């Protein structure tokens, strides 16, 4: 029906930053993720779309080492398989190389500690102990996330949804991770707030060439942020391609349905 694309790039000579092979995850009888494989090149943004239950968020939790997979390899940078590391080594990878922003700020933040304290916590876990350095790094990171510094000592509990996402972003990027994971980062925000948070994400990505994986059910978010996209359904990747190609010339029946259902 269509040409088969090359299995590997010919022009890009750098190695992928990340390569996931044959990822599997089961919850009881449910196969949440069934043999998912993909690569991410340095500086690239990969989107994962799909409806609830497609397995997209599970993929992200597995990459963030919050859960143990039932099968698969996770090559990250020079590490041939992060899943095969000891618990302690995995913890080090999670702290130093991976940052994550959740849809729900409860998962990523202590809502009653100050915004700056939340970021300091991340730096503390990496070994920084000097108060001045912690404070300075927290404010740099918050500023980069376009968070108003006048409010850096407020707890996230009293901040708006958009501000909470900025605190999460500042925390996730405080240690300049090689991989930034975003799980529905703007879902549930007001439209105008969503646009501004997306704008911050894009600006940051462009300025620092952050390698990102963004999970969203919102095709607009994917089009705005992602270079390439995976479409997931029932734990499988049913289609993959450049974002504009998948959204404008979808091949799989499910992707065609998804694209046509968009308002």
């Amino acid at each position, binding site marked *: 029906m269509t040409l088969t694309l090359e299995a590997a*790039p*010919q022009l890009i000579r750098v190695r992928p930053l990340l390569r996931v092979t044959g990822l599997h995850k089961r919850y009881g009888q449910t196969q949440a993720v069934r043999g998912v494989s993909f690569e991410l090149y340095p500086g690239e943004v990969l989107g994962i779309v799909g409806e609830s239950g497609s397995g997209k968020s599970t993929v992200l939790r597995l990459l963030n080492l919050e859960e143990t997979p039932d099968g698969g390899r996770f090559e990250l940078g020079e590490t041939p398989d992060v899943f095969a590391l000891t618990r302690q080594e995995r913890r080090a990878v999670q702290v130093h190389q991976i940052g994550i922003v959740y849809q729900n700020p409860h998962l990523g933040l202590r809502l009653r500690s100050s915004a700056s304290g939340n970021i300091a916590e991340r730096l503390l876990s990496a070994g920084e102990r000097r108060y001045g350095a912690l404070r300075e790094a927290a404010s740099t990171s918050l500023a980069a996330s376009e968070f108003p510094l006048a409010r850096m000592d407020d707890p996230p509990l009293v901040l708006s949804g958009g501000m909470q996402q900025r605190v999460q972003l500042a925390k996730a990027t405080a240690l300049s991770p090689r991989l930034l994971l975003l799980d529905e980062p703007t879902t549930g925000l007001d439209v105008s707030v969503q646009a501004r948070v997306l704008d911050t994400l894009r600006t940051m990505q462009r300025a620092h060439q952050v390698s990102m994986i963004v999970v969203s059910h919102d095709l607009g978010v994917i089009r705005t942020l992602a270079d*390439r996209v995976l479409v997931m359904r029932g734990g499988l990747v049913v289609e993959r391609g450049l974002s504009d*190609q998948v959204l404008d*010339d979808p091949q799989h029946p499910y992707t065609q349905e998804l694209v046509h259902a968009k308002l």
Partner: protein
Amino acid sequence: MTLLTVTDLSKRFHIHHLEREVAAFGELSFTLRGGEFKRVSGANGAGKSSLLRCLYRSALPTGGRAIYASLRGEIDLARAHDADIALLRREEIGYVSQFLRPRPRTSALRLVAEGLGTAGVGAAGLNTAGLNTDEAVDAAQELLSELGLRRELWPAYPSTFSGGEQQKVNLARALVRPQRLLLLDEPTASLDAQARTALSRRLKTLKEQGVALLGVFHHPGDVAGLIDGEIRVSAPSSVQAQEVTD
């Protein structure tokens, strides 16, 4: 130097909910050299835009080859890995669509300057690597004023602009960055006379610099004197809306 060699390229859209295939264009062959400007012509629905999109890979070709002589080596655009295409879009191949897709809360000036911001990635030599933000903004301003977008609109969000104003932003965004192959899909459709003249001047300069140009122009008069050849596209009627039985 031949930059692009297209052989038997074709595109059919498979529309699942109709269980049908719709042919966009049939087997098409042509070449394009650096500094050459060819016009894609054909009736409405003949597949002119689809041809450009297949080369930019915002659509997937169904068959054939499109060998492109990249600075990094030869590659078949019809089959290349997505990551390679993404790289070529950053470094060598540009595309001007018929319409701007404004991004919420992003000013006209930033949309244009941003086109330069990412071009340095990968350092292919040809690029604007090393241009800092101020220089990118200068280049963007120069192009916007050349195309005649009023200065007071530069910091505004283009979502509320008229069609013609949006198209100026769209053009500036695509033209601000150096390319080796530029694909133009009816860029003059909604432009006023000043912008059409400015565009034609800019395309002439690009042509002289050796950029290969391929474009759909509703009014070929807009680029008169620049066109070196024509590629006629037609949807193959025999397979049009063919029933699919798989």
